[in-house]
């Protein structure tokens, strides 16, 4: 698959990689290294954490990792299972990631720190709104959205919004019911997804959202 990088998007990718990672890591929870003193080893682990964030946290939260207490053999088996289920962790990164996870979340690691949240104190705790957005947001065009999606999103999220190795499924996901949040996440970027704010304006984000909603309705009929 040939990746298309218009110059503006390439710049946005660079900005996104620098800016998005720090802002998206939750303040109270982090992947903790195990008592390393050597700054170079710490830097090595920071890069591994970014690898994990890029290839694992696109599908699920970090708690799933942090609360495990597994042997190296168990970590290896879990990584292989995740890769078979779509995690695009490059083969040359496997041993580095297994090593980091075994050191940080092995049998001797301390009891996991857990978050306790109530009400809406969690980004993902969204219920369907009373009134979902209309199938076509006023003033938007799902046809324009189809073209914008193909050029800006499909390489990572799949031609039908079904997800692929680089990005998760979008069709049928609850974020489609929250236009403001959809625009914010795409504008600011998230993990490996670059910020679109230098490339797409709000109306174009709405066009893409309208197309994704139409795509979802097509799926529902199938």
């Amino acid at each position, binding site marked *: 698959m040939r990746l298309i990088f218009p110059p503006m998007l390439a710049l946005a990718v660079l900005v996104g990689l620098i800016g998005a990672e720090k802002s998206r890591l*939750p303040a109270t929870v982090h992947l903790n290294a195990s008592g390393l003193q050597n700054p170079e080893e710490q830097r090595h682990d920071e890069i591994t954490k970014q690898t994990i964030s890029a290839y694992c946290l*696109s*599908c*699920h*939260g*970090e*708690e*799933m990792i942090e*609360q*495990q*207490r*597994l*042997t190296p053999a*168990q970590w290896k*088996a*879990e990584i292989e299972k995740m890769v*078979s*289920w*779509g*995690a695009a962790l490059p083969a040359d990164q496997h041993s580095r990631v297994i090593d980091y996870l075994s050191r940080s979340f092995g*049998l001797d690691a301390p009891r*996991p720190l*857990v*978050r*306790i*949240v*109530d*009400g809406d104190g*969690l*980004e*993902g*705790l969204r*219920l*369907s*709104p009373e009134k*979902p957005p209309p*199938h076509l947001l006023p003033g938007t065009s799902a046809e324009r959205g189809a073209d914008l999606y193909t050029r800006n999103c499909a390489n990572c999220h*799949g031609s039908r919004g*079904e*997800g*692929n*190795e680089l990005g*998760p*499924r979008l*069709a*049928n*996901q*609850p974020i*489609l*019911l929250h236009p403001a949040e959809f625009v914010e996440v795409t504008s600011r970027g998230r993990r490996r997804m670059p910020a679109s704010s230098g490339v797409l304006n709000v109306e174009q984000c709405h066009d893409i959202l309208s197309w994704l*909603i139409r795509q*979802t*309705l097509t799926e*529902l009929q199938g």
Partner: protein
Amino acid sequence: MTLEPPSQCSDRRQFLKGSVAVASTVFLTKGRASESAEQPAAPESAARIVRNSRPLDLETPVKYFDEFLTPIPAFFVRSHFGEPAVGLAPWTLTVESPAGVIQRIRLAQLDALERFEFPAVLQCAGNGRALFRPRIPGLAWEKGAVGNASWSGVRLADVIMRFGGVLDGVKHVHFYGLDRPPSPKTPAYLRSIPIERALDTSTLLATHMNGVPLPVLHGGPLRVVLPGWTGNHWIKWVRRIVLSPVEAPGFYQQTGYKMPRSPLTPEQSPPPDALQPVTWQNVKSLIALPHHDSRVKLGPIAIQGVAWTGPGLVERIEVSCDGTTWQPAQWLGEARAGTWRLWRADWTPPRAGMYSIRSRATDTNGQTQPDATPWNKSGYLWNGVDHVTFEVV
């Protein structure tokens, strides 16, 4: 096969026919006043433990198990792939045979069927996984991937009879929800149950939970309710029901959610025919009070909790406050198949210090909680004796 219509008696219905005779239970219909139909004074919010932020997997702290019905804001949340975008189009449910769709139903069409409401315990098959040793990969649930709610809806048997056509040769019923995996390479979640369980009068397609429309997080607008069986069967966001001579294909039915017929050690790799699907829950109790790691004043202490089982009824509940002897605790409320029973014991510690108390339930099939559940590689059905440690000051 011949279908027997669900038996209809005035207000009493046999709740859960299994291979074991169960005491007949009061079958609640909507609006009937009773201890267990009372809705709890719902807190506006409740603190839950994050086991996964995406998709949301939230565990209930055991302190909320001091009431018969678990309030919705405190109720545990679990799914493999998170909720779908519910509400973009009117909900449809298809009933299908292997030959194709028989009926496509709108929710309003279910109003033509009689509604039933009763309490039932929903427990994740992996609740307690983090308590097994040696350690097992998977969501690190401790005690609170469980809750008791009052479920209201229509009988699956009535839906199948009304919309399902001829049932000759049908041995299994498949359930598919609207949720989808994040990647096309990840297997979709689904469930397949034997036709006998599908037609049991306690098997519901539920639209309401604790008196309110089923929240999306808990499978709204429609989910399967299968009292006594583990939560993996209680499919959320049900869209398709398929009547079939065979089990559903796919990882989550063919490989996932299986346990060895007899306990194995971690080193053993069982052949496929040594495995069977997880179905019934097992006997279990949890201590809601006093809270683990708490401090209480020297004086009389109320020990409280819940107990339930899979097939049968919980019969005996005991507590141990000295690490050696067991005393009976008192039941609060009647035994009812598929739901839990509150219990209480009063105890006065002899002096200040650290104490550990334990609870142990026994059911009418003679099953008792072990100290530690036999290990299984997926960490299912932990039902070891519960214990809490606290300081008396």
